[in-house]
């Protein structure tokens, strides 16, 4: 039966005898309340009233504590969280995310006994009944591929480092190397989600958002949480990195990471168009804010406050971002330290330099993504490139922070979403091999405020396949990062879907005290 036009919702095309209906008339129709709509709404009102009386005040006020119009727009919904829980060692953090899964056996997890086992089969006892990825599950054998590169001992700690990382080798006495990091997921998307948000499924806030929510901003003119993506190298096997990884999930979208572009304008449409000066822009924003406040007063959706805050942040970023990305005043010593790549916008080195500038300016959390570590094949061909792109830059960032006195209260984290297998994926030859995903152990490092310098934590077996000592699960890894920033991971929670949600999830997580200074 054909519906009466007045009964349709405004989403549907209204058509009366095939005649073109003027848009204005359609709007008018949809604005008219029909008897049916009125009765339907009254029913809901009664339901809501009943629910409100059951829940008391809380149901009416929602969760937007402190969302009254007088509170500063920079922190709607944040309220008084009482954070940090204890005096922090680090005020800010920089996370160098090695997307794809760096092969620990070729970088920092030295296994001298493997050389004699070239092309031998992995013992079943080591592999156990672990599930493999679809990429190698069908392989008839799992031949051991010793690292192509030699390792040497460096520093006073005598840490073994691959020849691929000559710069990292120079700072081992400062690093906290974790050989026993392990995770639950074996494929990229769930694993990278898990490392960043503590959950394999998208929709949870990431580490940076939790920090922004929990600790707030240090600089009103810059975002609290900035994400820098590194331009991809087409020769590498780049796995996608999406904004889900810096999403604020169920937290206010104000706490989501702000991505700076890797080329051209760092933030699109930040500059005022011709003919619009800052005064006009200001007046426009004031008017928009007024409308938004009315909406907020009427509807009570905390997201409206987030939107107001974001407009204001964008306005302030018009001045602060050009200053942030202007490298012309950097002294020569910077270029000597970082090397020529630092002048290439979008390179990992350039991003590391930006991260240092952000640390100076009070950005709470900077996350740099470097893709391409997914070396399923041609490890010998691609790994030197990947290391060349990141090794010196990581060293330069740490050294730069250190000499400027920023490393005392900045935590730098270097990690991927998982490690790689010791056995070769695909053919193994004396010249080349491939490595598949491996979640059971991978090597990460931290340095700076809060962590113990010059130690190697955790151990893997002779095949870098299982953790044999001091495991650091991804959950505990995140709990430890929070601890460096003065946060008790059990107490930084947000009530959502009936659960006190937290970064480390509902399962118990522990801070790894052995890593803390």
């Amino acid at each position, binding site marked *: 039966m054909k519906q009466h036009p007045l009964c349709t919702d405004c989403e549907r095309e209204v058509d009366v005898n095939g005649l073109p209906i003027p848009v204005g008339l359609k709007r008018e129709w949809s604005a008219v309340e029909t008897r049916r709509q009125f009765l339907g709404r009254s029913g809901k009102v009664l339901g809501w009233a009943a629910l409100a009386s059951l829940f008391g005040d809380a149901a009416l006020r929602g969760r937007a504590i402190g969302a009254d119009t007088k509170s500063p727009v920079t922190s709607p919904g944040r309220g008084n969280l009482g954070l940090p829980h204890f005096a922090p060692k680090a005020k800010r953090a920089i996370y160098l995310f090695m997307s794809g899964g760096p092969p620990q056996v070729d970088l920092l997890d030295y296994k001298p006994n493997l050389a004699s086992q070239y092309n031998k089969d992995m013992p079943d006892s080591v592999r156990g009944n672990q599930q493999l990825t679809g990429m190698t599950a069908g392989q008839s054998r799992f031949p051991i591929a010793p690292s192509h590169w030699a390792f040497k001992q460096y*520093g006073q700690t005598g840490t073994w480092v691959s020849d691929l990382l000559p710069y990292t080798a120079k700072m081992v006495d400062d690093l906290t190397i974790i050989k026993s990091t392990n995770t639950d997921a074996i494929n990229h998307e769930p694993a990278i989600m898990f490392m960043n948000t503590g959950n394999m499924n998208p929709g949870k806030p990431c580490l940076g958002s939790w920090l922004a929510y929990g600790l707030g901003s*240090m600089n009103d*003119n810059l975002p609290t949480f900035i994400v820098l993506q590194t331009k991809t190298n087409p020769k590498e096997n780049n796995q996608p990195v999406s904004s889900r990884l810096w999403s604020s999930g169920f937290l206010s979208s104000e706490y989501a990471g702000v991505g700076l572009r890797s080329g051209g304008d760092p933030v699109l449409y930040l500059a005022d168009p011709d003919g619009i000066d800052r005064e006009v822009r200001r007046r426009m924003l004031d008017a928009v804010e007024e409308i938004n406040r009315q909406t907020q007063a009427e509807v009570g959706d905390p997201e409206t406050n987030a939107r107001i805050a974001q407009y204001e942040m964008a306005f302030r970023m018009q001045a602060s971002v050009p200053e942030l990305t202007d490298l012309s005043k950097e002294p020569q*010593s910077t270029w000597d330290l970082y090397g020529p790549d630092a002048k290439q916008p979008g390179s990992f080195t350039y991003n590391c330099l930006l991260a240092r500038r952000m640390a100076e300016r009070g950005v709470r959390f900077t996350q740099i993504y470097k893709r391409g570590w997914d070396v399923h094949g041609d490890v010998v061909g691609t790994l030197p490139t990947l290391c060349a792109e990141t090794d010196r830059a990581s060293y330069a960032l740490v050294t730069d922070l250190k*000499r400027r*006195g920023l490393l*005392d209260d900045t935590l730098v984290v270097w990690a991927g979403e998982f490690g790689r297998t010791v056995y070769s994926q695909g053919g193994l030859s004396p010249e080349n091999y491939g490595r598949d995903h491996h979640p059971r152990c991978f090597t990460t490092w931290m340095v700076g405020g809060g962590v113990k310098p010059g130690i190697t934590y955790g151990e893997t077996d002779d095949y870098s396949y299982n953790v044999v*000592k001091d495991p650091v699960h991804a959950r505990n890894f995140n709990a430890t990062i929070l601890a460096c920033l003065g946060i008790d991971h059990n107490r930084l929670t947000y009530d959502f879907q009936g659960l006190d949600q937290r970064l480390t999830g509902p399962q118990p997580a522990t801070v790894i005290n052995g890593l803390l200074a």
Partner: protein
Amino acid sequence: MGAKRARVRRSAWVWIGCASVVLAALPFLFRLDGNAHGDWLQFLGRFHPTLLHLPIGLIVLVPVLEVAGARRPALREAADFVLRASLALALPTFALGYMLAYGAGDTGTTVSRHMWGAVVLCIGLMLCIVMRPLRVSREQTTAYPALLSASLLALIWTGHQGGSITHGSDYLTHYAPGPLHMLSGSKEAGDSFYAQHIHPVLDAKCVSCHGSGSAKADLRLDSYDDMMRGGKDGAVVVAGKPEASLLVARVTLQPGDPHFMPAEGRTPLTSEEISWIRAWIRAGATKSATSVPGVKFAREEAEPPPQPVGDYSSLMPEIQQMQHALGAKLVPMSAKASDGLILRTVDVSSSFGDAQLAQFQKFAPYIVEAELARTAITDASCDTLKTFKNLRALHLEGTAISGSNLGKLSSLSQLRYVNLSGTKVTAQSVEPLKKMSQLRHLYLFNTAAEPEGTAARSTP
């Protein structure tokens, strides 16, 4: 009647004699030689700690009943029963304890003291049972109280030895105040690598089974000489060869391995601790060497705990007002008010000068960190800063500070961190800061005072 009692007594004496011989002979029949004997012995033996508190309670109850019986005779009558019950429980407890030691292969002075103490205690209890009727009949009044007192002393001593086996010999004295603590004395003195790093690890992780209390496998690790002597499997440390040293081998096995040490789920050694032991053995495993190649301890300067500042909560309205007027913020270091406040100026750095800083002087005692980087403050601000008596960290990088007034900061006893990077300071003007012993981090990057080379950090 008298003859009958004499007969009972004679047979009782025979029983006691036999039982005492059996008890005393046990250690010679089943020598505690450090070898484990059968799991079922251990299985039963592990009920020893469960059972043992019952006879202890009963034995202690006996003198209580005897004394209380002076007022209420009914209680004194019960003492005989309690005494017999305590013996009835003490004997199986002893048996289980022996099974535990024999089954698990425990040896050592504490174990044998504990055992002999228990033998004495059991014999004492038997004698008490025999002598008590003589006291009741007033034939012999002194022997029973003397025997009971002796048994109680034996009980205390035996119990203490047992506690030392379980918890370690310094369990009671570990937290004792200074003078008392001297009594325990298991610490290795000296600043050698062994005394500082190897002995404490062994003491914490190994000595509860391989020490004076209990020396499983006849191995003791509580002193250097004992360790070098080795155990029943021979030497555990081969100087210069960590791979050949049993000490290293046993702690680096797979945790599931039956020979993995520490056994029975006790806390394993950390990889760091193992690396120290390895390096120490490689370097010759001497008792005296103070440093070992390959081991560097990251600045072990335990930072003294921060001085708590007063509670600033009552000043919050004033602080908010100030923040509103000046744009600079006073941010709590943490949820704990005594952790103090951070002065944060980054949002208004270009307009924040000496006059603005001076306005924060009224909050001076609560400010523990001043972030003044790239502000407009000058040397004159040192007069304000010197009143921030709890200041721990001072950021002055990129300011117009020339350093002429830095000497005024010398009175800041809590100051640990000063960053003067990118300022006009000279080697001479930072000299007063370098003299401050508690100032651990002084950053002079990009200044005329920067030390030669790349090391921007100078630790006075």
